[in-house]
């Protein structure tokens, strides 16, 4: 919303205050001001010219050659003018050669030069309102009052320049009173301790005469409806001052009655509707809920289907307006209108909001009503409208009484503001007079009591905004200015905070994965694109679906982290020869629900390691994950072959489960080759995933001290020839069992496959470290061990080599 400084100044004297200061003070006490601009900026160079002579251009029918007297600003100059309405005797606005018209709308700035137009010299330009940026379009040049002093600066003759503040609408959503200038004027009066003038001078209405009866069928939806019939209206264009005032705040001028309804709305925040009285006829005006299936064509030409939730303004039973949102087609005041039926009503905020939302029809009126306007304003607005109308159109007069069947009696809401509560919440002992001054400046009624203040809330703050004691704390705090409250540290007992082990574990896992293992942490959206789901073969799974996704193909919420992480490896692999990505994230499984009817949530840490050179990082990743878990005190076994249940991206024969005390907490795998192909990733990509909650379930394992061996270890190299089907883990287990207590460590150092071996066989070459606590082992021990290995190798289908 835009606020005009000139407009505000009508309600409160702001002399001596810089616009920038006002901006800062409103921001600090009331609402965020997003911008400040000068309306009519750059018009200082324009001067008043008197058209002495005006003759047809000898060579062009539509051009006139004018002799324009600029007085002290340049004497008499010749200007060729294209406007149809230019005539001798007019006072006009002239820009002289060398001066520049400011940029307007889409048009850039225009520098004026002396030139010849169809052979006739022209020294300047006579301007229209559009060229000055004061209207969107203009039928001809701007003609000034006959008493405008010749040669004077245009901006000194008429009030055109203004300062305009741009309010962030979001910051006044909770303040119905701030949806018009008067509300902001009240704030400024309170901030600067200046006097606020009354909003309107009451106008007497006839006690008898023509009126239209009003029937409010739903008092909850329409707490108040004021109607007035006004005759003698001339619906021509509004005078400059009104048009420019509206233009300054971005409101297009239409005709006098409509402009005035807009003016009143922008002043008091009270939307009004001016019907052509012929349309309303004898009425009665009926405010009722729509019937399901009923429709109305609104004045923007759209036919709107209604439901029983919507509220209509009808003449008799015929819908004339969508209450509080928009008038019906054809009800608008036009040039031919002479008699108005003026509506100034109050509507239930949520009713208006629901209809406006459902129809996607947001107007200045609906924006205000949905904030819960003060019913008192409905009547004030009529007075203000009539007062202004008579000023600009003396022939206009109310034909009969103001019809106001509901009326409005306000018994002020009373709230006790306890002194102790105020001081406690602000953290500052504000003195009573200060508190009293602030509340009274905002038009609260205040009685000081022993415990604090008894506060009567004015009607314009009572609809929604001020409801509880704490709301009053805010009023005092913001006017005192929060910035003036000295900071105070929190006090209390010193105790270590309760640790959420899962969060700390997740954090350390990531830190170690990134710092020790060389992973780069990636964030992917929770929305997993359909293309990725399809490529990963996971389209048949159940997903949480978003009703209103940013794009239709992104409505799924991921179940697992890996698919999107695989997708983010693709572009990175084009830039880097080797990519190691990890991501922590949540996955959602809608087929299971928790106690709040929320989908089951999994907390994962996923890894994708891939290289362009075809080398396979699986083994490296497996070792890395084992080291990572050991580092954090969660050592695990990565031995058991796993088949990738529910995770189609897992190679069904090339994966190990990550087990802790026998229960799985994740896996390390080859990427499934078919998925690798559709994702355009190397078939050698390695993947892993940890379920952080499962990992936590079996607790942290604190390392146990083992005495450092006193006797030297005895390393023995063992090469075993086995079938390809026999795993390293099986053989290692065999080597350990055979040596019983003597085996301290079994490490594979080579897997040999080659021509010298029988087909389908491999040689696994281990270093087995033997040791004893009570003696130094000898060659005999080595011989005995190898003997046992040789004897028992058959149990795993193996054979000791060499």
């Amino acid at each position, binding site marked *: 919303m835009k606020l005009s400084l000139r407009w505000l100044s009508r309600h409160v004297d702001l002399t001596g205050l810089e616009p920038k200061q006002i901006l800062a003070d409103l921001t600090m006490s009331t609402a965020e001001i997003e911008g400040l601009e000068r309306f009519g900026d750059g018009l200082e160079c324009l001067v008043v010219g008197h058209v002495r002579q005006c003759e047809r251009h000898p060579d062009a029918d539509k051009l006139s050659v004018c002799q324009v007297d600029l007085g002290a600003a340049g004497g008499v100059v010749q200007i060729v003018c294209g406007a149809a309405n230019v005539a001798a005797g007019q006072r006009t606005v002239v820009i002289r050669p060398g001066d520049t018209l400011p940029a307007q709308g889409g048009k850039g700035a225009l520098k004026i030069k002396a030139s010849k137009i169809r052979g006739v010299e022209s020294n300047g330009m006579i301007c229209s309102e559009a060229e000055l940026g004061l209207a969107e379009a203009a039928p001809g040049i701007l003609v000034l009052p006959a008493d405008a002093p010749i040669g004077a600066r245009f901006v000194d003759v008429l009030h055109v320049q203004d300062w305009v503040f741009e309010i962030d609408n979001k910051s006044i959503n909770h303040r119905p009173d701030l949806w018009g200038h008067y509300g902001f004027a009240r704030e400024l009066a309170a901030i600067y301790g200046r006097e606020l003038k009354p909003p309107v001078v009451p106008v007497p209405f006839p006690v008898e005469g023509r009126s239209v009866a009003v029937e409010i069928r739903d008092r909850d939806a329409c707490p108040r409806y004021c109607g007035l019939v006004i005759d003698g209206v001339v619906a021509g264009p509004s005078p400059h001052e009104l048009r420019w005032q509206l233009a300054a705040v971005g409101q297009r001028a239409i005709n006098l009655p409509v402009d005035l309804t807009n003016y009143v709305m922008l002043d008091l925040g009270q939307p009004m509707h001016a019907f052509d009285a012929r349309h309303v006829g004898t009425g009665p005006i009926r405010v009722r809920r729509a019937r399901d299936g009923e429709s109305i064509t609104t004045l923007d030409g759209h036919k709107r289907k209604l439901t029983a939730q919507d509220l209509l303004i009808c003449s008799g039973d015929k819908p004339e307006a969508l209450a509080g949102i928009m008038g019906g087609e054809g009800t608008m005041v036009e040039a031919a209108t002479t008699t108005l039926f003026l509506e100034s009503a109050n509507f239930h905020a949520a009713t208006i909001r629901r209809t406006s939302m459902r129809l996607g029809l947001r107007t200045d009126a609906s924006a205000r009503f949905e904030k819960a306007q003060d019913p008192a304003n409905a009547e004030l607005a009529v007075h203000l409208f009539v007062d202004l109308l008579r000023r600009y159109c003396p022939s206009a007069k109310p034909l009969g009484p103001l019809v106001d069947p509901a009326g409005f009696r306000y018994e002020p809401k009373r709230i006790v503001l306890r002194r102790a509560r105020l001081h406690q919440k602000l953290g500052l002992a504000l003195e009573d007079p200060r508190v009293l001054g602030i509340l009274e400046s905002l038009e609260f009624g205040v009685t000081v009591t022993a415990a604090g203040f008894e506060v009567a809330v004015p009607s314009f703050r009572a609809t929604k905004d001020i409801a509880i004691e704490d709301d009053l704390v805010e009023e005092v705090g913001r006017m005192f200015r929060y910035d003036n409250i000295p900071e105070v540290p929190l006090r209390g007992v010193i105790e270590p905070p309760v640790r959420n082990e899962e969060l700390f574990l997740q954090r350390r896992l990531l830190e170690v994965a990134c710092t020790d293992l060389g992973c780069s942490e990636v964030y992917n959206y*929770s929305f997993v694109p359909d293309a990725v789901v399809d490529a990963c073969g996971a389209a048949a799974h159940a997903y949480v679906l978003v009703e209103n996704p940013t794009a239709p193909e992104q409505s799924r919420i991921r179940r697992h982290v890996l698919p999107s992480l695989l997708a983010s490896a693709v572009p990175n692999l084009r830039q880097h020869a080797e990519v190691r990505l990890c991501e922590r994230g949540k996955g959602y499984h809608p087929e299971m629900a928790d106690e709040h009817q929320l989908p089951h949530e999994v907390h994962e840490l996923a890894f994708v390691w891939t290289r362009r050179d075809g080398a396979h990082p699986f083994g490296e990743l497996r070792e890395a994950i084992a080291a990572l878990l050991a580092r954090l005190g969660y050592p695990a076994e990565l031995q058991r072959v796993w088949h990738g249940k529910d995770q189609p991206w897992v190679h069904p024969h090339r994966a190990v489960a990550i087990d802790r005390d026998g229960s799985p907490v994740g896996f390390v795998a080859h990427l499934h080759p078919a998925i690798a192909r559709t994702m355009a990733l190397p078939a050698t990509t390695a993947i892993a995933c940890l379920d952080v909650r499962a990992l936590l379930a079996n607790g942290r394992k604190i390392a146990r001290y083992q005495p450092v061996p006193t006797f030297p270890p005895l390393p023995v190299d063992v090469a075993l020839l086995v079938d390809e089907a026999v795993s390293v883990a099986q053989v290692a287990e065999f080597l350990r069992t055979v040596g019983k207590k003597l085996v301290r460590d079994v490490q594979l150092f080579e897997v040999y496959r080659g021509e010298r071996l029988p087909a389908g066989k491999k040689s696994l070459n281990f270093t087995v470290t033997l040791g004893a606590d009570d003696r130094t082992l000898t060659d005999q021990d080595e011989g005995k061990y190898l003997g046992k290995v040789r004897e028992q190798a058959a149990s795993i289908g193996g054979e000791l080599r060499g």
Partner: protein
Amino acid sequence: MDTTARREHWLRAIAAAADPAALAAIDTRLFGPKGEVPEFVRSVTALPKDERPAFGKAANAVKVEVEQALAARREQFAAAALAQELAGSAFDPTEPGPRAARGTLHPITIVQNELVDLFTSMGFRWEDGPEVESEYFNFDALNIPGDHPARESQDTFWCKAQPGLGRNLLRTHTSPVQVRTMQRLTRQGFHAPLKVVVPGRCFRSETVDKTHEHTFYQMEGLVVDRDVSTANLIHTMKTCLRVILERDVQVRLRPGFFPFVEPGFELDVNCPFCSGRGCSVCKQSGWIEILPCGMVHPNVLRQGGIDPEAYTGFAFGMGLQRVVMLRYGIDDIRQFMGGDLRFLRQFPEVAR
């Protein structure tokens, strides 16, 4: 040969040794088994008694001198060898070795971890909450009833109805964890103080561009205790910003409206890009909006099972992306979710 002649003979031999091997040979010849020098010293026994003391003294002096000469020569060789070793083969210290691991944490993670460290050091617990959230926790429990306009201003992503699931949404802020935490802690009676931070992912349906993201990160904070005030909030927030932005920030606290706090504030920091003079980043205002916050609304405390008469509290919801962008000078918010290693690898730190 007499003493002088032998001395000179030996010293010459030592001086003439061409390399450590030759010197070692001379050492053996002079001092090894049957070495010339001890033999010479022992030859004293062949002399008459009265000549012995003089000879013995002279011979010993020669022995010491020869030993020293040998040692000095050895030193020389060692020094030359070391000099040669140092001069050695060509070495380029700028030649890179094998790469150290090049992993990086996401910049939001780095900043989030630092904030968590800061707040846990002040006694806050670190908590988490679901990203797919119920309408109740995201709105109703936070004093945002069904008809409240604040609901639309949050551009909520709603979830489709599914069997067994309630009316769910993607949380629009981390604030639902306020009531979740309070409810969890008050089930067995509330013990003040409650201090908690909740960093996490939030969602609002916005069109993504350089300054807007539909997926963003917030860090919620909540303090509930007897006698918590706005003055405490100001201090806590200033401390937090000073630490995280690593400068002595200026802040201003102005009114802001959020239904779950009363009073509500917006906290701005002076713009680091223009030092408050006004620039495009701060839209010429000199201030950057960074921290919506406020005193917890009594209705929210009630939802959490806490008596608002006995306790007060403050809450804040810091936009993490904004803080990260300020700290590193990042001007395009899309980078955070872009997954591009060329961006991510620019931030090799871990939390301080």
